[in-house]
């Protein structure tokens, strides 16, 4: 376009230059403008890329030529596929979310008085180093509800509705005629009315036992239609006493629900233990019953969700990423918005367009160049994501969360010292970027021809 103008309009007062030499001078000028960048890029990025490509054709020591051997090894390793899969999830979810959030924030921000404060709050995570950010999320989402904020909230809410059990963690004493069945503790044998069933339990913390508990006593003999027994903590300090037998000051466990279950599985009668651990189940018709202590007595307190387990950990890491990089999108788009000429939008508003139309028809298209930069940068950034994925997952979840850059690090530097294989992985990463770039060539061409 510019070339046409210079040929048709005579240069005023300056020596006329022919189009050809003008174009040639242009190339020289361009060259000068580009020189510093090209030197640095070529030496510090370009050369290492070539080095890496060459290195990927050799084995770990650098001496044995493998040709495409490393690539074959890479593609036959299930860990590589898992990482590629994870990278794909990342690419689909993270850049779009960050860009949209950034856009929404940047646009809405113009309407509030405290915009600078808001900008600062959203931007601050970018200023925190990746390692510190990783530590924040790792700590917040850890399993232990005493230490991890996420589970603390979940357990807190859960416990509002479900108070928890009397004796969390109680287990039946081994070889004492009782067993664990579907989280309930039941007698191993059937009992008829007039019989008894005792429950020596272990694993109950001393401070779970209420002060009202008394020394466990043997239950009175059952009358007709009754089953009696005792539930007690079968533990003596130092391992003394007879396992499964009363005596030695073992404490009874009060307020334990006891059920009589008939052969069809229905609960026919229920009772609660007294302060000395004894209970009486009455009104039992003849037949045989299983006596059991339902699991509600013993369920361990709810400890929350395993956020960092293999299933959810990638989600947590992506969340951390969005927390950090939405700020990037917002700042970039905000600077793009501020470069727009507001008169166009004003004109549209005066013409009767509402806010949404102004945004859709005028603002958004004008923002397109910035949005492209943000989006593509995020996609590429996400393809080579390393720090967060290396720091957040615990060792047991790392294989399921791993991405290509982590694989590359583990293989080349983390002691693996197989620079050849690591280089192949790095080249894989570059190859994955190409599709996105090719899509954009057309866009660049279109812009050039404007």
């Amino acid at each position, binding site marked *: 376009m510019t070339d046409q103008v210079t040929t048709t309009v005579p240069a005023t007062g300056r020596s006329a230059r022919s189009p050809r030499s003008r174009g040639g001078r242009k190339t020289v*000028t361009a060259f000068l403008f580009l020189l510093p960048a090209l030197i640095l890029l070529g030496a*510090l990025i370009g050369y290492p890329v070539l080095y*890496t490509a060459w290195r990927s054709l050799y084995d770990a020591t650098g001496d044995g030529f493998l040709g495409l051997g490393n690539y074959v090894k890479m593609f036959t390793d299930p860990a590589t596929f898992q990482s590629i899969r994870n990278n794909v999830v990342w690419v689909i979810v993270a850049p779009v979310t960050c860009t949209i959030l950034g856009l929404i924030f940047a646009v809405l921000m113009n309407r509030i008085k405290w915009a600078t404060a808001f900008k600062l709050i959203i931007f601050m*995570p970018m*200023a*925190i180093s990746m390692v510190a950010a990783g530590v924040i999320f790792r700590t917040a989402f850890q399993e232990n509800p005493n230490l991890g904020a996420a589970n603390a909230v979940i357990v807190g809410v859960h416990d509002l509705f479900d108070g928890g059990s009397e004796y969390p963690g109680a287990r039946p004493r081994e070889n004492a005629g009782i067993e664990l069945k579907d989280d309930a503790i039941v007698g191993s044998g059937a009992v008829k009315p007039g019989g008894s069933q005792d429950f020596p339990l272990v694993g109950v913390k001393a401070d779970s036992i209420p002060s009202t508990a008394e020394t466990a006593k043997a239950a009175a003999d059952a009358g007709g239609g009754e089953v009696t027994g005792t539930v007690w903590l079968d533990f003596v300090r130092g391992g003394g006493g007879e396992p499964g037998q009363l005596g030695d000051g073992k404490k009874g466990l009060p307020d334990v629900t006891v059920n009589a279950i008939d052969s069809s599985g229905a609960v026919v009668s229920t009772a609660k233990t007294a302060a000395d651990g004894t209970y009486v189940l009455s009104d039992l018709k003849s037949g045989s019953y299983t006596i059991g202590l339902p699991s509600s007595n013993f369920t361990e307190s709810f400890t929350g969700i395993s956020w960092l387990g293999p299933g959810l950990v990638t989600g947590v890491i992506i969340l951390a990423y969005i927390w950090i990089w939405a700020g990037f999108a917002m700042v970039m788009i905000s600077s793009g918005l501020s470069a727009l000429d*507001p008169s166009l939008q004003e004109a549209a508003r005066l013409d*009767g367009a509402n806010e949404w139309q102004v945004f859709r028809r005028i603002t958004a298209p004008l923002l397109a160049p910035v949005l492209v930069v943000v989006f593509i940068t995020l996609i590429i950034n996400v393809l080579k994501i390393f720090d967060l994925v290396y720091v957040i997952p615990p060792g047991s979840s790392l294989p399921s969360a791993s991405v290509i850059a982590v694989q590359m690090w583990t293989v080349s530097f983390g002691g693996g010292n197989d620079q050849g294989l690591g280089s192949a992985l790095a080249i894989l990463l570059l190859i994955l970027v190409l599709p996105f770039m090719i899509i954009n060539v057309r866009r660049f061409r279109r812009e050039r021809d404007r």
Partner: protein
Amino acid sequence: MSAPGIVKPKRTLGGRIVGFFGRGVVNVVLAVVALFWLVPSIGLFISSLRDSKDIGQSGWWTVFTRPAQLTLENYAGLLGNAQFLGSFWNTIAITVPTTALVVIIGSLAGYAFAWITFPGRDWLLIVVIVLLAVPLQVSLIPIAKLFGSIGIFGSLVGVIIFHTAFGLPFAIFLLRNFFIQIPGELLEAARLDGASEFRIFTRIVLPLGGPAIASLAIFQFLWTWNDMLVALIFTNAGSQPVTVAIQSQLRQFGANVDVLSAGAFLSMIVPLIVFFAFQRYFVTALLQGSTK
């Protein structure tokens, strides 16, 4: 421009939704977002005020019920450490030149890609952007060898060059896309007046690119400031930046949340100052645009 008078906005669905977002609703929505966004940072900040013994025991929210556990020790420990304080100067010595170089070199190249036509331009641009995908780790060994043979391995110059090079792909991409939006007529007029490309660059393009350059500066500063890997390998004891200095404060096997959090907040101060200083340029330019 249409005739003056009150015009009713179109009542499309989109229009109604956006109309619903009156000032009040926007304020509430953004306030909720801001709150959620702040929670992890608050958690980190409170952790920086707790002793490592408490951090290992209970979550940071317990300070609300037991404020006595708050302590300034973590900060005192870092600020009292001469090596840590010294590292701040080193970090500035690395970050400021890098940012300046990236802005200068990046805008020169960005302008060339945007407004100077030359053969192979689009493909060269693609190559530059693809370089954005090269992870740092890949360059460590070849560049260490290269610098070693030139003799700048271990010096600040080497670190600065390294960071500058890796900052260029993003800088070029961003600035090129910004400069593209400058009205071609302006540049044409200047060319007709006989101005050289360089003149056009400095007198017209750079000033108009203010917001883009400001945001580039913010992020380049930030990324260089927070880098650890390159610093660890390419500097030595005298030239360590903050990130490496914090690393040396960590106990070998602990979780080190106390040191990391205090270190993170101390380290964050400078980039945030830079952010404040430069983000004015967005707002300023907004006002300036209307009086052009």
